[in-house]
């Protein structure tokens, strides 16, 4: 029991270290600023929410999904690339942690930035609710959907960070990996693609799994998709890091 508590305490220390170092890098502050500006810009200048006079935030949440695709890899794409580049991976690997714990600590610390982005969304959404009769179920579902997509994006980005030789390359890889399932419906809709392949593409399509959430429906199949996919990429990250020890 004592050993379990010690391991938990060590894990928390690792998470704190990751958060501290990311804050010191200044990346989150840029991220929060860019996200706030992009959301506000889209909301008021591009979509012109108030001019439309429609109490519907579906389009807004779809735009947030695209923003997350470009923004969240900023936090996670450097996770392992930086460790490798700076040689600090040797420190981590020589400490009494399992590889899975190292991956988990980086993932949990990145979740903090995702949580703050969700708060930013709430700060934008709540003040406009009194202006119309909004479907709160749809808003709650959409928030859950983009949270799950964020979790997925962070896990994909951390995996990509084990591949790239430098942070920018890892970032580009992350965005490409995320864009593929995001744009999958376009590929799946091409008439040249045979039906079984189109069906497979549909199954990994992000819009297909987000659609229910954005309409306020929480479908277990979609929740499972995001959770399983996220765990899969975290597992893949762990396996790739184990591979570093063999090379």
């Amino acid at each position, binding site marked *: 029991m004592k050993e379990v508590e010690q391991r938990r305490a060590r894990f928390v220390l690792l998470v704190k270290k990751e958060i501290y170092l990311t804050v010191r890098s200044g990346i989150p502050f840029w991220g929060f600023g860019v996200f706030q500006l992009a959301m506000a810009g889209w909301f008021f200048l591009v979509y012109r929410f108030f001019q439309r006079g429609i109490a519907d935030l579906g389009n807004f949440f779809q735009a947030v999904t695209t923003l997350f695709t470009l923004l969240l890899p900023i936090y996670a794409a450097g996770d392992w690339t930086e460790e490798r580049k700076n040689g600090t991976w040797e420190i981590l*690997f020589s400490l009494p942690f399992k590889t899975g714990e190292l991956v988990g600590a980086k993932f949990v610390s990145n979740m903090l930035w995702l949580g703050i982005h969700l708060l930013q969304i709430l700060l934008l959404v709540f003040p406009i609710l009194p202006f119309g009769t909004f479907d709160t179920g749809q808003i709650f579902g959409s928030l859950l959907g983009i949270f799950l997509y964020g979790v997925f994006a962070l896990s994909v980005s951390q995996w990509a960070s084990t591949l790239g030789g430098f942070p920018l390359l890892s970032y580009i890889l992350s965005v490409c990996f995320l864009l593929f399932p995001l744009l999958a419906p376009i590929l799946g809709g091409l008439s040249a693609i045979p039906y079984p392949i189109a069906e497979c593409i549909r199954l990994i399509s992000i819009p297909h799994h987000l659609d229910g959430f954005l309409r306020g429906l929480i479908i277990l199949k979609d929740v499972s998709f995001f959770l399983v996919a996220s765990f899969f990429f975290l597992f893949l990250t762990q396996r790739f890091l184990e591979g570093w020890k063999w090379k």
Partner: protein
Amino acid sequence: MLEARGVCKFFGDVPILDSISFQVDVGKTAALLGPNGAGKTTLLRILAGILYPSAGTVQIAGTDLGKDPIAAKKQIGYLSETCSLYTDIKVEEYLRFLGKVRNVADLSIQVEKVAEWFQLEPILRKRISALSPGVRKRVGLAAAFLPDPPVLLLDEPTSSLDPEQIFQFYETVESLKGKKTILLSTHSLEVAEALCSYGICIDQGKIVAKGTKEELSQKLGYTNPVSWEMVFRGWMR
């Protein structure tokens, strides 16, 4: 005690280490000697649990590194060759982080102790990014010694240190003689001369000689023990 048995390492198809076996007893300080590219750093990384061996086993203070890496790593203090550190953090914060991870009792006292050993008191509140390579090396050494581990693995511990700091390092290691098992990789035969009673000479991934200075001198035909330099030159011919 530190023991490697039949340790091999391949990077792809390229053999880096070939059946390395040795033992460093409790309280002994051993030198890992060899030319550049001999495989010293790879061997130390394997002993520290950073890399997996392609074959062979490592025992750290009685714990099998392959079977229980967490328990084994708790017994190790490791200094890497490049001495890479988190640069956006203050020296004291870094040491405290490592101390907490390693569950060091009386952490403040232990931090003070290693800071004194490696003359870090004036820079404890400085960011590592602001430090010169020599000072960073001292921080790395302090980090390795901080948890008071029974086994110390030090890769080029005196590179980048000035003569005064090297002397201080000698004194620290001398004070730990008989208590710690230390394996240090070095190009400086002076360091080996000053600190090590046991030597392991490797070349192209193979052990060419191992033993005490006396044993290796005798095998070379010297009637009296000679310096590590002569032993090394004799075996590397």
